[in-house]
């Protein structure tokens, strides 16, 4: 027994009894001992509307289709819309409220197409067990290898039963989906009359279904006004610990709630206009950004510098929150330091050394990486000029620089700086040759340690094997390698060992 709506039993006792009576008269199969809590369509509509504001038309359409047990539902319905537009949650709550037998399958949990099929049958069995009273003999449904056996299984399962709703959430993101799955789902109703499928996807599935006149319900992205309305429903508190009652005897919880709502409303519209409009307009991103910025925003109010209604002064004081991008960047580790800037001025760009190692690499490993970078970004014909001994590096460098950069070439082809291109592959011997050239003293023995380091760097994904997946043999001499880091990292590496990588790079940098 699903526990949905059980809390409403008392208030809706009358209607429940009515509905169940109606149910009994309609379907002899549902001989329920427990009185199911079934709501009337209008009540479902009201509940959903209050729970999910700004989705009136979609909720109306869906309730029309799915709230009544005895009225037919469309065999297939596609609910589409971008992320965070309320598709799944609305459909799920609707089905739970209407207490139709249903099963919801999240396709992103299914690893293969077969997995999805097995999941469908298993969830349908579970759902029927929950909604019906008798246990279904599961022996006959032990295997669902392909779409046709799914059709057969569902047919057997739903034979002689009432309407059943199957929801496939995120069907367009299904991994390793069978190519005919969509088309098959579209035609299931032809063999299973009492099955009604809802597909939830990001894009309309008109192309994939091959079934004309499939009803689509579009969940449009929330516009600005709707977003603000939804967020205004639950304003967070300004004061985490309410101010002491002795000091402020007038400041009642009601007043505090009013202040919260007032300031939160102003604040969210400011966040939307300055940040979320350009970075992430969907509800989830907007809510995350707003909540992230809320605490630093109300910090002066909490400290007592400003009153709760000094919105304009607060804005000026905390303007750095809306100027920086910290609030909308996705980070695993929440960096509080830049948000809670007490000075109120624009903080200097955080000196985040982007790609430095937290731990130092060994001396020769660092040189190997630098050599690999140079091997990737220098054409091999210039190696003689850069790494031959007994030559003046600077003189050669200038020559190469001018010949490649200027002249008629420039007007014809737009030159892209080398370090912005993808690294080119190189053989291992070239790496080792450059490595030895970088270390002027020839004191590095030809020991296996160097190869160990290459292997370690490979498993750290700093060096990558460039050849196809077929050449898995690590001892293959023809194998080519590539670096997997950028210019800044290479420069940082060079500086840790006192080597300016830019001096060896063809064409210079910047």
């Amino acid at each position, binding site marked *: 027994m699903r526990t949905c709506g059980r809390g409403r039993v008392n208030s809706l006792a009358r209607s429940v009894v009515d509905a169940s009576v109606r149910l009994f008269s309609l379907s002899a199969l549902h001989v329920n001992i427990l009185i199911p809590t079934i709501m009337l369509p209008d009540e479902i509509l009201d509940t959903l509307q209050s729970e999910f504001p700004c989705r009136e038309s979609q909720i109306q359409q869906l309730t029309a289709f799915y709230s009544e047990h005895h009225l037919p539902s469309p065999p297939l319905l596609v609910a589409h819309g971008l992320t965070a537009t309320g598709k799944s949650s609305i459909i799920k709550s609707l089905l739970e409220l209407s207490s139709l037998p249903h099963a919801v399958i999240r396709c992103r*949990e299914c690893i293969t197409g077969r997995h999805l099929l097995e999941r469908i049958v298993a969830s349908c069995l579970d759902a029927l067990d929950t909604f019906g009273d008798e246990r279904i003999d599961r022996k006959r449904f032990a*295997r669902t290898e392909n779409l046709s056996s799914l059709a057969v299984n569902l047919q057997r399962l739903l034979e002689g039963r009432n309407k059943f709703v199957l929801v496939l959430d995120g069907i367009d993101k299904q991994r390793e989906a069978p190519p005919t799955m969509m088309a098959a789902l579209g035609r299931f109703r032809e063999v299973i009359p009492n099955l009604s499928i809802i597909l939830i996807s990001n894009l309309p599935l008109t192309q994939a279904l091959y079934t004309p006149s499939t009803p689509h319900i579009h969940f449009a992205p929330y516009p600005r006004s709707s977003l603000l309305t939804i967020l205004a429903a639950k304003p967070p508190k300004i004061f985490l610990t309410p101010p002491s009652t002795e000091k402020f005897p007038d400041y009642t919880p009601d007043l505090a709630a009013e202040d919260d709502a007032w300031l939160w409303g102003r604040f969210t519209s400011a966040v939307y206009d300055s940040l979320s409009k350009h970075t992430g307009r969907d509800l989830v991103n907007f809510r*995350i950004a707003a909540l992230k910025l809320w605490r630093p925003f109300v910090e002066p109010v909490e400290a007592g510098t400003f009153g709760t209604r000094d919105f304009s002064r607060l804005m000026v004081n905390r303007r750095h929150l809306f100027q920086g991008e910290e609030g909308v960047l996705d980070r*695993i*580790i929440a960096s509080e330091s830049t948000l809670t800037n007490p000075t109120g001025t624009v903080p200097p760009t955080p000196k985040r050394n982007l790609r430095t190692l*937290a731990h130092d690499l060994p001396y020769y490993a660092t040189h190997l990486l630098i050599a690999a970078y140079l091997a990737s970004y220098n054409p091999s014909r210039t190696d003689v000029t850069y790494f031959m001994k007994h030559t003046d590096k600077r003189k050669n460098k200038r020559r190469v620089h001018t010949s490649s950069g200027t002249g008629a070439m420039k007007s014809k082809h737009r030159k892209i700086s080398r370090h912005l291109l993808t690294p080119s592959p190189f053989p291992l011997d070239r790496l080792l040759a450059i490595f030895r050239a970088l270390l002027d003293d020839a004191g590095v023995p030809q020991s*296996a340690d160097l190869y160990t380091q290459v292997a370690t760097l490979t498993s*750290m994904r700093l060096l990558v094997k460039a050849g196809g997946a077929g050449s898995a043999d690590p001892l293959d001499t023809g194998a080519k390698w590539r670096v997997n880091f950028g210019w800044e990292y290479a420069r940082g590496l060079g500086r840790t060992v006192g080597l300016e990588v830019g001096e060896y790079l063809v064409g210079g940098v910047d």
Partner: protein
Amino acid sequence: MEHEKCYIYAPPESNSEERPSKRVRTSKLQSQPQLTERLSTYREVWAQQEERIQQTLENADSVTQENIVKFVAASTTSEGEPQASIPTGLIVAGPSIASHGLFFSRLGQNIRSETDSAYAVLTSGECPNLKTLLKCLVKKITSLKDDGDEHDDLINSGFSARNGPKLLDFDLGHVQMWQDKNETQSIVVAIQDSEAFDTAVLVELVDTVHSWLDRLPFILLFGIATSAENFEDRMSGKSLRYLDGQKFDVTQSDVIIEKLFSVTVANADARLRIGPTLSHRLLDRQKDHVQNVQDFVDGLKYAHMSHFYASYPSIFLRKGSTYTDLPSEAFEAVRNLPSFRRWIETLLQDGNASEVRTLLQSDQSLHEEIAKHIKLGQTALTSLSQAAILFHNIRESLQISPPFRLSTIWTRAAAGDLSGSPLYRETMLSLKKASSDKLKQLLISMERLNMEGSSIDWAKFNQNLLKLVQNSDGSGPLRSQDDVRNDSVRTTVIAQKVLLSKHKAALSEQDKAYSELVAQLHDEIDRYMTSAFIDPQAMFLSEIFMYDLKSPHVEVFQPKPRFAIERALATPHDYLGCSCCDRNRTEEEGVLAATQPATAILYQLFLESGTLINASDLWSAFEAIVEEGSEESDPKTSALIQRALAELRYLGLVKPSRKKTDHIAKIMWKGL
């Protein structure tokens, strides 16, 4: 070149009757006398060391581990409301990826013992794609805590198989069933080497885990070798939104190595010590090539093993071995030691001929001497270690830059070149110049060290200093007479010449007293250090209590495979040792002779050529060498060169090239 697809290979005729007849060994040669005794001694000595190592390793990252366990425990407490994001720990474990496994297994033990969580480690090797990853995860988690319930499980699985759809083996539904039964607070999934995972797999894992988060309390831990930023850059924005966590830094491996060194090699009581050359090599390798704690430990262990295995006199390190236990061969072995000879020579120079005679003739008196000297040597080394620790402590408390590590100081001391070195003089001078506040710190830390070997009474010095400081009325600390701040330079101009003269400022009474105290301390420390910093190599029996052979270590831990192949091909005589191509005889460098193996000849020709090699030129050059003088070409030469070329290709030195017809491309260069 390959004009025949196949041909019958005729092996060169072997003259079987010329094979020398086998000889049977008549006397039983015991190549390794008393091996079992030495083995047991080794085990005893190493067990001590290993215990110390384990303790150090466990303590080394206990703080980080505690933090992670706390994080896991804190993440589990928020129950009730659905979590929006997966609690994630980013463990920056450093580039020593070999030690990550140990770290994560220890972490698992801690997490399991201190929180009510399931813990599973995933490595990149077992998870090439999402399906196998989930399979592995399911297997690892459901096999936990099943000791008593195994029976139930079997029944359950059989039940579901017979009656209805079975869950596929990568379905996290298994974990949910397990979770329903066990009700753990959290399921910790540790990704040991996140770099080696395919990014797509990680992204999908995060997606799947997040999808299950409302039913299964997952916590993810990522082991990172490079940096947390690097990890974040790899993940997509969506996955980052699903994750929310903290960063944990693991202790750098060089710090751990330093600690290990001080407890094993520089420890006050170690029966066998690793000599300066070898320890220098071990440490350098850690700095330059690999950062790997386990490798360091292995190096130490191998040194211990090879000492007891290869050196027979090491039997004398055995505790409680009496004269009767030892055969005369042991004493004969000691008499062959270089340090024994040196000792005998010094004795002879002193005119103790009779003593020398008894030592050479009587095993019993030699045994007594050996016992005495081993004890002496070990005490000397102990005091050397203590002096090194003291020296390091002085530098650290006085904050003398550049900072030297204890390992560096110890290796220099053990090599016998610390006393009298600039480093030593500099340190002692800084000690003389130290002001009272710095000296106070030094004395306090010395007292804490609580050295047994030194005769210096730190407490007394400390008391005297306290008295002086209390009596002083000035605001600043007391300064000794050698402090530069007490010097002033006076300039006098006489007859258009500038004279600079140094001048000592007048010292106050307290400063004078303080100077005396410092001078006294300096002298005592100096005396102690000079007595402790001896050259252990020069001592009698240093071969027994100190192991300092480099080559076994290098051969095992730092082999040179490519160099060996190149050398074998370039100068085959080094390996074959045959008389025909002896270099000394021909007196010419790199001479090519027909007697050399064909592959070696071809390799040397290969070395002389450029990137693209003409095969026919190669053949004619080869022919000219092999068939010296003879006119017509021998069919055997063709076979030889084909085999040689095939071998070069097999070694990866050449490959067929499409750039030019009849050419092969050189793909390896000597000496890289």
